[in-house]
């Protein structure tokens, strides 16, 4: 089995924070990587080295440091392109996070500056999302429909936490301009059937944006194979720094789209009364880009590639199976999301009651886990409030796993939950 050859202890040594003691002598058990991942020393050092010795602005500079910094920044684009199998490096746009990447696409729709019919939207047109989306893949589309008079529609979610595709052919129809869907849910762990959605979208000529914020960090993702038109993800969830996200898009579409943010570096020529724009990717990178963040992201991509994305996927699969089994032994725990390991990642959300059957608020679960055991989980609606409304609950507790987690840590989680039940017994 692959996971037996996975040297998690060696990996843990790369992440300084994992050796840290929390106040009160608690060890850190970090089960909140779905929120943001920790960083290996390779990433931290690459950033420090760049800031110390090679930093300057990029593109526009004609001196030695400018050349070094530009080389590092553009090499990061090459690395990210290769990491996700982008057919062309120009198709990788660096944004500040996944949210900006999605907004960039959403603002193309119904933009008065747009000239391409695919982004022309008005009353009668439809935009389709799903009930399990992160707010970052809902709110930009609400704005787009509010701006244009188009209608927002969405796929429902089954009790098991899967996308309900019964209405596929009705929901995605000739009026649909774009379908925006998560590759993997940040609450349920569910991996969605992108191929089926893309196939239907192709039939009716709709575009597809995949929010891969929760998949790219955890398994091999190839944007060409995925078949979508746009794919968004974010550096800080894939052992990279905050301050950088990625939009991949088909070159032909990115070329056709109107610019979004205006400013330095995204132009070809500027007169007082009009401007012409640089080719992609620069057209969408206004102002000074996240330079040292790109350097950090490149180091992150190198790190993940070195460990091996298939190995990471297998390890997380192993951990997820272990966690699901261990948690199922707590009768008062209700899993929100698939129980089986098929098409599911290592994001595990649940509600908890005490032995007497009274609900324990997730805030309290999370706080006791942290206070007493140093177990860091996320509690709340995880920026997916509509999904929680769908399940009739205000909040869940979520453990989300990554390459550096161990079965010991999952045991600590389970011990912690038993203690929570006692405290609020």
């Amino acid at each position: 089995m692959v996971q037996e050859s996975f040297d998690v202890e060696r990996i843990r040594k790369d992440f300084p924070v994992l050796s840290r003691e929390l106040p009160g002598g608690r060890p850190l058990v970090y089960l909140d990587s779905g929120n943001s991942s920790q960083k290996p020393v390779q990433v931290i050092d690459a950033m420090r080295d760049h800031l110390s010795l090679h930093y300057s602005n990029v593109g526009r500079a004609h001196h030695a440091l400018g050349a070094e910094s530009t080389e590092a920044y553009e090499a990061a684009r090459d690395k990210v392109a290769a990491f996700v199998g982008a057919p062309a490096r120009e198709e990788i746009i660096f944004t500040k996070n996944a949210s900006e990447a999605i907004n960039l696409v959403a603002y193309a729709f119904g933009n008065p500056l747009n000239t391409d019919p695919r982004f022309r939207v008005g009353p009668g047109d439809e935009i389709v999302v799903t009930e399990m989306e992160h707010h970052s893949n809902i709110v930009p589309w609400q704005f787009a429909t509010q701006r244009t008079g188009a209608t927002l529609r969405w796929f429902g979610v089954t009790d098991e936490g899967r996308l309900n595709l019964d209405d596929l052919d009705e929901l995605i129809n000739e009026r649909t301009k774009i379908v925006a869907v998560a590759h993997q849910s940040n609450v349920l762990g569910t991996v969605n059937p992108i191929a089926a959605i893309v196939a239907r979208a192709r039939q009716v000529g709709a575009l597809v944006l995949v929010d891969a914020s929760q998949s790219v960090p955890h398994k091999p993702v190839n944007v060409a194979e995925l078949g979508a038109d746009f794919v968004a993800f974010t550096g800080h969830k894939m052992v990279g720094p905050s301050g950088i996200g990625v939009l991949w898009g088909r070159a032909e579409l990115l070329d056709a789209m109107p610019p979004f943010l205006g400013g330095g570096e995204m132009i070809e020529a500027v007169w007082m009364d009009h401007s012409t724009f640089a080719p992609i990717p620069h057209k969408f990178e206004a102002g000074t880009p996240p330079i040292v963040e790109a350097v950090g992201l490149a180091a992150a991509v190198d790190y993940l590639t070195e460990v091996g994305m298939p190995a990471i996927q297998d390890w997380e699969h192993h951990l997820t199976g272990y966690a699901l089994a261990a948690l199922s032994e707590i009768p008062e725990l209700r899993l929100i999301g698939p129980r089986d390991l098929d098409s599911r990642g290592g994001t595990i959300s649940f509600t908890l009651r005490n032995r007497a059957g009274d609900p324990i608020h997730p805030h309290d679960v999370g706080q006791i886990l942290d206070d007493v055991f140093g177990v860091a989980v996320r509690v709340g609606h995880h920026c997916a409030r509509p999904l929680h409304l769908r399940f009739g609950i205000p909040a869940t507790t979520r453990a989300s796993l990554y390459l550096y987690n161990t079965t010991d840590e999952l045991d600590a989680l389970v011990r912690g939950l038993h203690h929570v039940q006692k405290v609020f017994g």
Partner: protein
Amino acid sequence: MIAESMYQELILEHYKHPQGRGLREPYDAEVHHVNPTCGDEITMRVKVDDGKVADVSYDGQGCSISQAAASVLHELAAGTTVEESLAVVDEFTRLLQGRGQVEPDEDVLGDAVAFAGVAKFPARVKCALLAWMAYKDAVVRSTR
């Protein structure tokens, strides 16, 4: 560890044995406040007689912090003057919004000092303040 903890004994005590819980009559004003980010809810009634807080009664649902905060509020406010109680609310708000940097005035806050640890968790601050903001709102309405 408990010293490091946000969960002072006192908070758990109030959560498990809430003081003054339940909606009572008579009252001058009733308000209903919701924290949309986490679904915590509270209904609060206030009865004011001659500048004195005759009763604070409430019902709601939420995490231990929000429930305990309502209970502590009841203890501190009921029986004092409106003015005194609003001074406590102000000091409590200052403490909670101080991001862990504010030195609380124990003389003013009494038991409510136990919530000092909450101030470091912005996501929990609203839980602790829910009942207190509802109270302030209710008092303003009842004296209008």
